[in-house]
């Protein structure tokens, strides 16, 4: 097995740290460039929430102090970096005084679950279909049907979500309209709860699957075309190996490698797409948390959620970059 040179790991680690650092800094800087004063927003909400705000000057000063807004910018920034590194995102301003980290911890498993399930399904279906499009022995019907289905590729998941929701929830009441599990089900490790989660997750997952498998199919098609003409494929055929064996062991196996890198990058895009799907289906993951926070301009939550999503993406890319040379010995680093 190839060994990964330390320099390569260091390089990747550097990019990882830089990504997270730049993203976190952007998230910190942008709200501070804004003309909107978070304390004003909070006060406005308090006033709207009922009652008079008697001594608004004093309250503002106190809020500023408790959010650390009275300190010099550089101190604020350093504190932010220090807190973010320890996953301390402060307190939510909208649902004061719940810690943002706690809200994220509650939402994260739903998002990761939905994402992993839909990603794995699309990866398998998409790559298989893409390979079959090129394979000379696949039935003719498939070669016509797949490109027809492919038009979904270019549609953003939110639109497929709307369509599925309309057909299978609104018109045909087969699936629930919103939520991640039934209202009358107690969350816990029960079969009933698991069933409810799967049932509620089906449409959101499908809305991601039908629009993303085409991406994999198209990529795989291109890769398979190159593999098709390679000497080892020709040799395998000449040896008289079984057709299916050649397809899986020679062609797909070699063609799929670049797709694995794409898999990691796709995690990032999927998270963003999933924010929207979760919003439409009111699925209680990170997307809904983010959406609800935008509605009430709850900046600590917006920052926290964005940071965690970016961290997840960056980690996924980092891991795949490390694993990749292990599965593809042709890749040599630093050479």
């Amino acid at each position, binding site marked *: 097995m190839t060994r990964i040179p330390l320099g390569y790991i260091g390089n990747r680690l550097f990019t990882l740290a830089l990504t997270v650092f730049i993203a976190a800094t952007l998230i910190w800087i942008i709200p501070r460039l804004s003309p909107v004063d978070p304390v004003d927003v909070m006060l406005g909400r308090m006033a709207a929430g009922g009652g008079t705000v008697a001594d608004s000057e004093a309250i503002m000063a106190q809020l500023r102090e408790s959010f650390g807004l009275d300190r010099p910018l550089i101190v604020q920034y350093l504190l932010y970096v220090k807190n973010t590194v320890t996953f301390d995102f402060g307190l939510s301003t909208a649902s004061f005084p719940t810690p943002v980290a706690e809200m994220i911890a509650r939402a994260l498993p739903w998002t990761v679950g939905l994402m992993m399930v839909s990603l794995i399904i699309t990866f398998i279906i998409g790559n298989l279909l893409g390979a079959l499009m090129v394979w000379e022995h696949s039935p003719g019907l498939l070669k016509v049907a797949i490109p027809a289905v492919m038009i979904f590729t270019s549609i953003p998941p939110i639109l497929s979500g709307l369509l599925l929701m309309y057909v299978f929830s609104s018109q045909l009441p087969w699936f629930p309209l919103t939520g991640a599990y039934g209202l009358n089900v107690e969350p816990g490790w029960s079969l009933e709860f698991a069933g409810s989660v799967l049932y509620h997750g089906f449409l959101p997952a499908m809305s991601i699957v039908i629009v993303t498998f085409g991406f994999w199919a198209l990529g795989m098609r291109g890769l398979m075309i190159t593999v098709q003409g390679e000497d080892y494929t020709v040799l395998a055929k000449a040896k008289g190996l079984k057709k299916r064996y050649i397809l899986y062991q020679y062609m797909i196996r070699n063609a799929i490698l670049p797709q694995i890198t794409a898999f990691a990058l796709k995690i990032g895009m999927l998270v963003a797409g999933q924010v929207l799907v979760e919003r439409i289906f009111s699925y209680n993951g990170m997307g809904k948390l983010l959406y609800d926070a935008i509605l009430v301009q709850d900046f600590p939550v*917006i920052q926290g959620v964005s940071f965690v999503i970016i961290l997840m993406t960056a980690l996924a890319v980092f891991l795949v970059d490390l694993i990749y040379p292990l599965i593809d010995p042709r890749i040599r680093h630093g050479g």
Partner: protein
Amino acid sequence: MSDVAMTRRQKRRMRRFDNPWLNPKLIWGLGLLLGIIALGLLGRVFWDMDLVFTGAGMPRQGPVGIENIRGQVGTLAHPLGTDVSGKDILALLIVGAPNSLYVGVLASLIGMSLGIFLGFSAGFLGGRTDDVIRVGSDVMITIPPLLILVVVQAAFGDISLTLMALLIAGFVWQSPTRLIRAQVLSMREAGYVQMARLSGASTFHIMFREMLPNLVPYLFGSFIANVTTSIVTAVGLEVLGLGPQRVPTLGRVIYDAINSGALIQNMWWWWGFPTILLAVMFIGLLLVNLGLDEVSNPRLRRL
């Protein structure tokens, strides 16, 4: 096969087959896109926009007696129906579709120019410059654009279509940069570049007169792909209720529909038609991209 035996029709077919630019995917895709642009341009001329639009480009609530046409399914006066405040959906699409395309094309153009500049710099200068640009593009690929845009939007409230395009452009320069860098590296030693250098051509001349034309087919593909990405990102923002607040876009119409409970009240035309138009737009872009792929890569053409 001898020429004599061919009918005129067969010859015509042969010619058509020989010219890669007459690729059916390319033609269909361009046709769909031109159709959408025509809808935006001609729609304003032929459709009575005054009924539902004020000068500011934002729909108003229509004339007196509007109550009867609120949330109505298609009629002769409003073929695509109306929303709950009586706005004509067709009129919204006529204004919204060009706006959505504008954001996508502008973001992609800016991203492209950045990509060409950075790609050439990385490929030609190499060394430190190359390292910085490569790490920068690695970093930007990891950050989901939607998130940064969400933060910008939440912080600033309203933004213009152009500002949104500018922001999105910050996320679509990596693929042209990589493409150009790779091509520049492999083309640097090509015969015609060496020739140009020997004949005393300036670096600028080599870059833009000798190398760039060869990259055009790839750049077109990258451009179209970026238009799609930009529109998807913009629609995503709009459906979250962010993006420009005072200009209708396709995503904005869908947002209004979802927010007013159109899904539950079975007002399918409200979100359905903008969705279909978006889908047509994306399919058009995809077909153009696939078509360009086949034009520039003869290996794909046989399939």
